[in-house]
């Protein structure tokens, strides 16, 4: 018999938009307790047979106290982490215009390649005769980096961008010492728009920082550099394209000024992705530059690493490169591991660097080819300028409406008198389903909003993004402050109390006090 009731197929009367649920969950947004609140000491999600009985060789140091860890079964583990993952925004979730961070598509081919047992399951200290393909890959990655940058040498082993900076500055310090000028060449020039890692790196190895102010157009004036140079100049650390999204048009003159004073030119290559295939740092006077493989060549950011920051070096610095590095011999690729073999300044990490990232980056390069890498740079720059063109009538730019590189920088002067701050504006973007842009960086621009769409966005995606930001801008200007002041309203969490977190830091879970103690 036909069931003529069935289930309703129309939405029906819309009820109240929200109500408090019993669980605190909101549909697919599910609250998840801490591992230590759901796990149990006796539970394990890994099955192993009991160990064979042997006579312990631990001496008197066998662990006698419980560690305090908890375990989960496999289904509980999946649920815990899947629920956590759903509270995160990734590039695959939507447009992620985080300026200077280069959140571009992460091809899954690269993940697959890095997991080939011949790459993922080889030990750094296996006999070198058993890792010939791995050495070949390092050499090939190095070759691509050298050709793309026009530099003669590369040090691969650094673990991240800041580590690359450290490596490059160490090479410079070693070169200065080799000239016998270590006691006099102690000053590093850093533009005020520089990323914080630059001064931190230089200071870490004993350099003194002198700040170079930017001129009104947001770039560095070679005359200002020349005025600060002298016999004490060790180097300049210059980001190009710079953190304002502009190409340092006088880069050659800046390099000449530093070289004329006997110093070196360290280029922060964080923004190299804008100019791959368009210009070669080696032809601009650069002595050392790190390349963030996790930005330019799309190894995934992974919630904050791992990164990789190979450093390309000029002829003058090449001899000081850290071990290990590869050299091509008649018998194939050889790995030099002993710093005593030449003028190397030493070792900066235990093994050979971020092989997992090398594989992904080379996979990305091979896929694009030289032609595709240039196209990617052009598209990244095109996309940023398209956003600029779509917003320049509403939002103010600190250095006027001029072509930018791969990222477009706005300031907050257009928000004056609206009661809306850069922070509010960014948080309102979250409710619209976007990751906010980089805010309050570079520090030299008031209320900075740095938007980097990357080459991974389609025109339709950019159009919707522009329309969304225009809608928000109009809302801010017409005084719809509620949309901003409490934003985000729709994210897994509202704004978090950072003051409380910092005043009385709680940095780990601790078991709740037993009731008898809590009552005291």
């Amino acid at each position, binding site marked *: 018999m036909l069931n003529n009731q069935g289930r309703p197929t129309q939405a029906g009367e819309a009820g109240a938009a929200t109500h408090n649920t019993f669980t605190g969950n909101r549909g697919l947004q599910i609250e998840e307790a801490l591992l230590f609140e759901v*796990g149990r000491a*006796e539970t*394990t999600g890994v099955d*192993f047979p009991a160990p064979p009985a042997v*006579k*312990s*060789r*631990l*001496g008197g140091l066998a*662990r006698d106290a419980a*560690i305090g*860890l908890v*375990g989960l079964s496999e289904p509980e583990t*999946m649920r815990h982490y899947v629920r*956590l993952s759903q509270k995160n925004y*990734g590039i695959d979730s939507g447009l992620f215009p985080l300026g200077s961070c280069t959140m571009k598509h992460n091809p899954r081919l690269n993940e697959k*390649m890095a997991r080939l047992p011949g*790459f*993922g399951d*080889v*030990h750094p*200290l296996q006999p070198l005769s058993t*890792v010939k393909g*791995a050495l070949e*890959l390092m050499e090939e990655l190095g070759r691509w980096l050298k*050709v793309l940058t026009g530099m003669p040498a590369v040090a691969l082993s650094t*673990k991240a961008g*800041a580590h690359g900076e450290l490596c490059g500055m160490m090479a410079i310090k070693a070169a200065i010492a080799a000239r016998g000028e270590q006691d006099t060449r102690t000053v590093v020039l850093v533009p005020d728009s520089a990323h914080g890692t630059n001064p*931190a790196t*230089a200071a*870490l*190895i004993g350099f003194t920082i002198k700040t170079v102010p930017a001129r009104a157009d947001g770039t560095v004036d070679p005359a200002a550099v020349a005025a600060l140079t002298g016999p004490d100049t060790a180097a300049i650390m210059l980001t190009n394209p710079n953190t304002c999204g502009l190409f340092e*048009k006088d880069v050659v003159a800046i390099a000449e000024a530093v070289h004329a004073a006997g110093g070196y030119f360290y280029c922060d290559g964080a923004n190299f992705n804008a100019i791959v295939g368009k210009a*070669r740092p080696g032809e601009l006077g650069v002595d050392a530059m790190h390349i963030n493989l996790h930005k330019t060549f799309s190894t995934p950011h*992974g*919630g*904050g690493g*791992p990164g990789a920051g190979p450093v390309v070096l000029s002829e003058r610095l090449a001899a000081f490169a850290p071990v290990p590095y590869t050299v091509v011999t008649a018998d194939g690729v050889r790995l030099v591991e*002993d710093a005593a073999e030449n003028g190397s300044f*030493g*070792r*900066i990490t*235990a*093994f050979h660097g971020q*092989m997992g990232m090398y*594989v992904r980056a080379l*996979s990305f390069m*091979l*896929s694009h080819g030289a032609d595709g890498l240039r196209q990617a740079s052009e598209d990244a720059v095109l996309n940023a300028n398209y956003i600029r*063109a*779509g917003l320049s009538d509403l939002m103010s730019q600190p250095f006027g409406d001029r072509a930018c590189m791969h990222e477009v920088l706005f300031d907050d002067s257009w928000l004056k008198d609206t009661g809306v701050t850069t922070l509010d504006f960014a948080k309102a973007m979250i409710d619209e389903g976007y*990751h906010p842009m980089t805010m309050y960086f570079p520090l030299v621009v008031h209320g900075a909003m740095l938007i980097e769409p990357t*080459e991974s966005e*389609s*025109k339709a995606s950019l159009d919707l993004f522009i329309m969304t930001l225009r809608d928000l801008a109009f809302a801010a200007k017409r005084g719809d402050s509620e949309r901003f002041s409490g934003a985000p309203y729709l994210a897994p*969490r509202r704004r978090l*109390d*950072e003051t409380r*977190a910092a005043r009385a830091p709680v*940095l780990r879970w601790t078991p709740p006090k037993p009731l008898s103690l809590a009552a005291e």
Partner: protein
Amino acid sequence: MRYLPLSEADRGAMLAKIGVGGIDELFADIPSDKLLKGLIGDLPRAKGELEVERLLGRMAAKNVAAGSVPFFVGAGAYKHHVPATVDHVIQRSEFLTSYTPYQPEIAQGTLQYLFEFQTQVALLTGMEVANASMYDGSTGTAEAVLMAHRVTRRRKAVLSGGLHPHYRAVVETVSGMAGDAVTALPPDVRAAEDLAAAIDGETSCLVVQTPDVYGNLRDLTPLAAACEAKGVLLIAVFTEATALGAITSPGQMGADIVVGEGQSIGNGLNFGGPYVGLFACKQKYLRQMPGRLCGETVDAEGKRGFVLTLSTREQHIRRDKATSNICTNSGLCCLAFTIHLALLGEAGLRRVAAICHANAVQLADQLAGVKGVKVLNETFFNEFTLELPGDAAAIVEKLAARGVLAGVPVSRLEPGHPELANLLLVASTEVNTDEDRASFVAALKEVL
């Protein structure tokens, strides 16, 4: 090109909207004589997925994967079984393709696992606080030394001769560049050095590894007392995190800072990286700690949430006065670590550690039975030093030719020490079987 969504028509329309005649007008700030045209060197053109896979597959095939042979190589990186769940979860887009959690409202997933990770690391090491990771154990050790200098306002580190030689080299490089002093004791194969005698009132820190690079377990308790008496910080280092499931934690023995390599939990060998540095210390040194920290707080509705905190220590605020220049760390490797450890739990970690130890003991006993071969260790966890009747590097090559990856010749880590040339570091974990051990012993008998 499959990764680039713009069509030629899109590009044309966008250039028109921007108001420029061609793409190179947007690159006008590059000096015109430096603007590249045409081919770039001899680099090839774009390739399809299939082609790339073939190319890289061929390179990979030239390497001997650890899982394909009897495998006993350690010395700072260890082959363990990583459950399938771990690799599945870390490849979820929301973890893989997210950034450092600067927008906590939409990064609670990352932040919560970092908080859980910090808790796990603090428990494992027996310390009060842990950070959200360093690049690896070696760079973490150099950071620990710098931190000790800040705390003590002294500038001399003393390094045990049992410290992994690569770790020593990294500390020496960083210290040398920073103008700090380092006293590195000579290679100490049998854990016989007198470390308490090596420190004085100018020493900032004593760096001791346990299990040490030769596999010996070291009791830090008397050293902690000696350090305290002279105002020296005791930095305990480990390279095999699994050991902490079987041995007394460095915190229990009185270490001030504990730093080590976390690769062996959750992370593959990857030919040396990426790995994950674990870093923990006493609460009172928190402000001098390098790296990111995740802390608990509440949101505007009073719900529990997590944020990065105490960031005024870091480079993006402190610039040249920061505690470290570290920015990106090892986020995804932390995730792999914390998932694997959540799966293991207390019970699983202790069991896997017990199996590692038992396998190593069985192996040591069997190898000691080979004529001319001596096990030098009194104590060890899952790695020990063999004295062979000939050059260890040559023997390792012969064994490799017979399909056994037997370990790390000490000469590879300590070149220029002929007295160490016959020594071989041998590691064993839960992946080794009776057959693996039998193959090793048989092959060794053949080549000696």
